[in-house]
């Protein structure tokens, strides 16, 4: 039987959660025995090669490309997991949610004390994805199946979750792994 496939994406995140995936150290060899990696920044595959069992999503949605990507994952993965606080709640990028987008853009490109912008315009190249009015947690855009909290979730948390999921066993994380205060 073919190995199940895993895909990962970093949306409006810092790649910290992906670092945490790599932090499983030598267990990555075991992981490779269990699964194949499909579309992911780790192998730099841009398109899905086939249906995936699990999609790990780091980061919330700050712009249209994030939304597009997340929907692409939803269409191609059986199970989607919000990995880390940005995916779950928007995280640090969502700090801008308390002010209108226009104010953020004005401060960044027009009015900020160190801005040099002779054009006096907010960049609008078609290559640059448009920002959303606020940063959305993933579950407000598509249905998410599981949530792994943490900033980032520790390697052990990710490992335990994946192993439980792949073996169809209930996940029993020790308190220390999900205690954050």
């Amino acid at each position, binding site marked *: 039987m073919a190995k199940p496939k895993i895909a990962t994406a970093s949306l409006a995140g810092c790649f910290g959660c992906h670092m945490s995936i790599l932090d499983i150290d030598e267990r990555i060899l075991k992981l490779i025995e269990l699964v194949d990696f499909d579309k992911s920044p780790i192998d730099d595959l841009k398109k899905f090669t086939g249906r995936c069992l699990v999609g790990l999503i780091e980061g919330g949605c700050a*712009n*249209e*490309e994030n*939304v*597009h990507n997340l*929907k692409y994952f*939803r*269409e191609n993965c059986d199970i*989607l997991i919000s990995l880390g606080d940005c995916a779950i709640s928007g995280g640090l990028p969502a700090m801008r949610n308390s002010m*209108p*987008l*226009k104010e953020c*853009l004005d401060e960044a490109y027009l009015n900020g004390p160190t801005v040099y912008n002779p054009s006096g*315009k*907010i*960049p*609008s190249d*078609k290559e640059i*994805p*448009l*920002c*959303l*009015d*606020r940063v*959305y947690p993933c*579950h*407000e*855009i*598509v*249905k998410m199946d599981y949530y792994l909290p943490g900033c980032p979730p520790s390697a052990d948390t990710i490992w335990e979750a994946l192993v439980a999921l792949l073996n169809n066993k209930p996940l029993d994380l020790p308190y220390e792994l999900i205690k954050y205060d």
Partner: protein
Amino acid sequence: MSDSLQQKIQEICQSSNNDRVRMMDIVQGVQKELGCVSSEAMSIIAKATKSHHVEVESVVSFYSFLSKEQKGKTVIRLCNDTVDRMKGCEKVAEALSSELGIGFSETTADGKITLEYTPCIGMCDQAPAALINDVVAPSLTVEKVKEIVQNLKKDADPSKLSLGIGDGNNVDSLVRSAVKNNILKTGDVIFTDNESGKGLENALALKPEEVVEAVKVSKLRGRGGAGFPTGLKWQFTRSAEGKEKFVICNADEGEPGTFKDRVLLTEKFDLLFEGMTIAGYAIGAATGILYLRGEYVYLKKFLEAKLQERRDQGLLGDSIKGKDGFNFDIRIQSGSGAYICGEESALISSCEGLRGDPKTRPPFPAQKGYLASPTSVNNVETLCSATRILEKGSDWFLSIGSRESSGTKVLSISGYCKNPGIYEVPFGTKVFDLLKEVGAEDAKAVLVAGPSGQFIAPNEFSRVICFSDLGTGGAIIVFGPKCDLLKAVHEYMEFFVEESCGYCTPCRVGNVLLKKKLEEIMEGNGQPADLDYLQSLGESVKKSSRCGLGQTSPNPILTTLKNFKPLYEALVKVSEDGMQPTFDIRAALGDAEQAAERKSVLYTD
């Protein structure tokens, strides 16, 4: 600010002895005089009371009848509670708005009249109703409000309006109100002839401990909704350590649909004041405070006169009824429009001249209440019942009602029914029998104990009003066959969001999230999983909130989810493709498209 105004403010502070504990009286006085409590006024008050500007501001910003910004000389507050909406408050609102030429939360250009909405003002039996400054205008119609506005334009003084005249003591020259009592069923305890003064006389013949014991034996429980055993509360307060002790009567019935205390205060003030005096004797207090909700301030002069009469008769003051060493007097503290102040520890905060924030418990008010002294906070009806227990004996009281719920309950019944009003019934009465009596046998739902209580469906109408089944502070709201229940649930959630004091996160944030999710479902964007979300979030808010408000605010949702689930199920549908129907990419991109002056290439219309 002119010197004379400054002096006026100082005089108001002086009349409360520059005492910061009396901050409520001071800021209410200034609001009345100036039409607002401006920042400058706050500074003057802070200086006079040796308080801080921010402390004064925290009080002013908390209560809805106080404002920093200038309001019109006349403020019309139309009640937009669910029952008022059933009775046509929307049409009245339109008429008010068009007659005045302003929207709600606005003031006319000449600065004379401000128009606002307010939650339940305790007039559900004569809805739709409004407060015009302190004057109650019940049973409004489009024609009536047109006339009111025209007369107010001529003369801003609302007390000169001809709104009709009510019944009972509403006719008294100190009340002169159009409010009607609507006492439609009398019972054996409260609305019956009693031998005035006998209860107090009997109490004073006993030792204080024996009075507490008599109330304990009677199994009297709090009538405000929580149902705590009154005798036990008195015993705790009596035995708690403290130089001074206090009796506070909670007359801040703010639960939408409740209006029984209004009628008790109008007609049964003697029972109440006697009960407070008995409580004072029982727990060893010399001071009683009647916390009168801001909406009932039209009764204040009348009640103060009645207190004076009691003083003149030796029923209040020093050595009451010749009993050496028993000194007791009562003052009235008005509220200023805050639902949360019906919660006893928030009410105490308010009496202390603070924001109406609930206090952390323990210590309970019986140990550390008003000014950190042992305090017994009792509902109006509880104290009235205590008087009757001392008058007729515990056994008599036990013989009324059901085994574990002795006595009667005064209910305020309103909504979809032919005869809204006050019904005093013995505990153990079935909902079905109540509905028959009020003329609402085809009811689709009954909200027992107001929005913080529970919605019950016809298959539960055989349940009974008592502490072990359907406990209630007295609000019974009936919903007819054509009522949109979810719309009502949504209105109640709006109410709780508005009235949350904001202190603890579960209540401040949780109620907003509950309301938002409910809106999504009502708009047809909900999914079956959202019902589980409502359930678990609602339970979390209940479990983790700091006071009774958050511990009950999810009830409209939770009890309709339990008893009217098909209403929700008809609205939700599974999203086949896993996308969230509530997310609107076009709307989310609007701001950015405007800023970038181009359309999205990924998501076109």
